[in-house]
């Protein structure tokens, strides 16, 4: 059995993973990265807008923290939000010192620009490709330090001890499938495993996320016993291209782009969705308006609406929005100087994720998470534009340092089932959620496995058996299951949510789980078997989809990105709490823990979120 041993293993090499690895390395750890894509292929590269950081006179971290708390609709935890706001200036300057090609002011300092929901123009950017530069700059630092990268290794299971109480479990490593050779290998981490697997937009059939964003991290951590937090909060972007999900930035509407329906009506005004702000209303308002138009038969091809910028004139478009012309031409085959662009809402960002504290640590000893897969929680129910990238570098660095053994002080955010304040007792689900077979859990279940090496070896064996079965047995292809799951999620757990739809989604998810029992991989090859990888991913999508839907069904209010037809108000008296779901060895347990509004110097008072 091939077994690699390192002090710290980082799973995923996007912005969060790279930052974590560099931090652990700087603390003297032997750190290795294990990633299913080569680092520069990670989806961090797709971020365009920028990184929020209070760098300038007139701005300070407290303002950034305040904006973030308000944007979160008071569902973020103050210790995490304040850490983000305090550490991001230093982290951004660190990126500059590593050579990141930020856009510049006349005086040679890095440029910042205004972004939605910010009280100060603190979004630091590098052209329209901030994420690309952030990703490449950090990968360069990884190369410089000679940090070992196992690229095209798909991590499919964590090696965690099997204590009954998840808070007593320890993580000793993980198992990965070497995509090129087909070998299943063990990774033993003496000091910690950091999950940095990114988003999970593939739960939906239309998303700005990459094909590789399949929620592997949250699904693996969840099945190993770490609760997932606030999963119902999913951000949708109102202007994505219908055929691919490529994002058309807010900039187009900012410059005066107009949305209209099939009848040529400027519906944002015509139907009163936002009489003042019109096209510039917030993301969720515009997304709901577009879908209403389509649902009421005023969409084009029953699918999308038009975003028109022709009236701005060629000169202005070329000057300010040149990259949009290329995006529309390359990915939709539309010349936006000649015709309007088709757009529709698409899944964009997942606020929820693996529960961690502000040091990136989960309730399982030795298991950390950072980046979009984690929930600390800094975004609460709604992420502000420009706040995800600082999260990658701030929390990535902290997780890396902590895993490497640096004392970061006691965390302010409690984790694990012991943080529970309240059980959800009357959630009415049409079908039983969770595993079909209660033993279906990723922790070793054959007695007290405590020797680290045994735990890893056991996990490798279990994974070999699973892969052997998938390759050898007869059955259906996963692609249909994935497609049906994605459709059900888009139909029912979208920007519009109501009880009936959510219950229908749970039924479909259950069916998908049942069909998955018979799934098989038809490509018999060990070499680069993407059929196998995608099949394993589909199981993760099912688990993630279920937690999103359960959370959405439980939360009887409208807060941030979570809209419920029956409950049109934010209800602070009852809902200033995080929705937590623990796998509980296959029969999911839904409970709550309180939001922390108590900051370092002040208490955040919930206010109406209006801009």
């Amino acid at each position: 059995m091939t077994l690699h041993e390192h002090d710290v293993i980082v799973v995923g090499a996007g912005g969060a993973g790279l930052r974590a690895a560099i931090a652990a390395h700087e603390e003297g750890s032997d750190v290795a990265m294990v990633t299913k894509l080569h680092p520069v292929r990670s989806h961090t590269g797709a971020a365009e807008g920028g990184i929020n950081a209070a760098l300038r006179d007139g701005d300070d971290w407290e303002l950034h923290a305040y904006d973030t708390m308000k944007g979160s609709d008071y569902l973020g935890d103050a210790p995490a939000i304040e850490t983000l706001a305090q550490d991001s200036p230093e982290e951004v300057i660190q990126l500059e010192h590593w050579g990141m090609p930020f856009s510049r002011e006349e005086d040679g300092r890095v440029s910042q620009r205004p972004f939605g929901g910010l009280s100060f123009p603190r979004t630091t950017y590098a052209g329209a490709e901030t994420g690309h530069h952030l990703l490449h700059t950090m990968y360069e630092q990884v190369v410089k330090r000679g940090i070992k990268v196992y690229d095209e290794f798909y991590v499919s299971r964590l090696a965690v001890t099997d204590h009954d109480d998840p808070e007593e479990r320890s993580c000793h490593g993980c198992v990965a499938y070497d995509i090129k050779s087909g070998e299943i290998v063990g990774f033993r981490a003496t000091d910690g495993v950091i999950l940095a697997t990114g988003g999970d937009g593939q739960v939906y059939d239309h998303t700005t996320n990459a094909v590789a964003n399949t929620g592997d991290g949250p699904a693996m951590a969840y099945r190993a016993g770490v609760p997932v937090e606030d999963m119902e909060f999913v951000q949708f972007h109102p202007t994505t291209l219908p055929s691919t999900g490529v994002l058309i930035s807010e900039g187009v509407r900012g410059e005066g782009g107009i949305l209209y329906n099939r009848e040529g009506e400027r519906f944002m005004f015509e139907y009163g969705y936002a009489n003042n702000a019109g096209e510039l209303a917030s993301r969720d308002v515009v997304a709901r308006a577009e879908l209403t138009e389509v649902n009421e038969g005023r969409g084009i091809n029953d699918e999308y609406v038009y975003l028109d910028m022709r009236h701005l004139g060629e000169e202005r478009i070329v000057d300010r929005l040149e990259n949009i012309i290329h995006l529309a031409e390359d990915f939709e085959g539309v010349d936006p100087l000649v015709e309007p662009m088709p757009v529709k809402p698409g899944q964009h960002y997942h606020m929820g994720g693996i529960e961690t504290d502000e040091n990136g640590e989960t309730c399982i000893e030795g298991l950390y998470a950072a980046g979009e897969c984690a929930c600390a929680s800094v975004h609460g129910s709604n992420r502000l534009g420009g706040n995800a990238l600082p999260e990658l570098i701030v929390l990535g660095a902290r997780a890396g340092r902590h895993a490497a053994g640096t004392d970061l002080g006691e965390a302010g955010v409690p984790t694990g089932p012991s943080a529970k304040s309240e059980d959800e007792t009357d959630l009415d689900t049409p079908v039983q959620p969770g595993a079909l077979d209660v033993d279906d859990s990723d922790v070793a279940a054959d007695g007290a496995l405590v020797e680290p090496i045994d735990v890893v070896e056991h996990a490798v064996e279990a994974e070999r058996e699973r892969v052997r079965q998938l390759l050898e047995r007869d059955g259906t292809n996963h692609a249909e299951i994935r497609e049906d799951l994605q459709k059900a999620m888009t139909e029912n757990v979208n920007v519009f949510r109501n009880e009936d739809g959510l219950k229908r989604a749970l039924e479909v998810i259950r069916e998908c789980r049942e069909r998955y029992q018979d799934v098989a991989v038809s490509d018999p090859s060990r070499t680069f078997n993407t059929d196998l990888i995608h099949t394993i991913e589909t199981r993760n999508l099912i688990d993630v989809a279920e937690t999103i839907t359960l959370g959405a069904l439980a939360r009887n209010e409208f807060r941030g990105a979570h809209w419920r037809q029956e409950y049109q108000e934010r209800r602070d008296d009852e809902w200033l709490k995080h929705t937590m779901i623990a796998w509980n060895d296959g029969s999911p347990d839904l409970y709550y823990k309180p939001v922390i509004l108590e900051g370092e110097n002040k208490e955040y008072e919930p206010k109406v979120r209006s801009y």
Partner: protein
Amino acid sequence: MSTQITETETETETESTHQKRRLAEKHARADMRERAKADLSEAEESVKIKVFRYDPEVEGKKDPRFDTFRVPFTKGMTILDALIYARDHFDSSLTFRHSCRQAICGSDALFVNGRQRLGCKTQMSDLEWPVRIEPLPHAEVVKDLVVDMEHFYDQMESVEPFFQTNEIPSGELEEQRQTRENREKVKMSTRCIWCAACMSSCNIAAGDNEYLGPAAINKAYRFAMDEREGEEMKEHRLNIIEQEHGVWRCQTQFSCTVVCPKDIPLTEHIQELKREAVKSNLKFW
């Protein structure tokens, strides 16, 4: 192995030997095809793609061949969309790298109708049909459209592809200054997504395995031209690209510049480095 083989057609409609695995699987595939056919009859048009297939491990695929798939054409369809359709509806073993679908991850540089292109950035409607899709030439094929990227990565990493300077300001939260002009100067060079299309198109690289190649030289350019690194470091960088298998190998054929999906003026950058190298050599003469 090389991808330059004569075309032997195998329609997916005919069962090839290695796919006769089990009855149940056949049923599943038949189902898949039914679904696909239903889609096909609805679609107004369909397009044929001829895709290179090879798997060193699987009977029937050890000898490279082309499979033809007929996929429904929709407006806005890219090469990558067509491949995904064929994989998800006809043959789940069809293998290619892809992730972002928006020309930023650099995973899917392919050889399409005889030219290096990014699958996700190439509209089907811009090509002559049927469309022929092959792995990148001059690289080892791992399976189907997947090539071994190790050599490309090695070249990229051989030019010290990381920022180095002795001039970090000491003030707290103080950045290094950079003029707008200088940022503009390096801008195009920083756009590289490591897709390897340029390397694959380059005749010199094909003949000299140690040639750094356009992308790695461009990476060196990105740092050599960045004023924040300082003059001393620039000398060091020029030494790196002046080595035997460096800039002087380039014969300005422009093939890399033509295929680069990020429109990086590679040949110009290489030429400029040659001039800089000459200048700096004169200085020390």
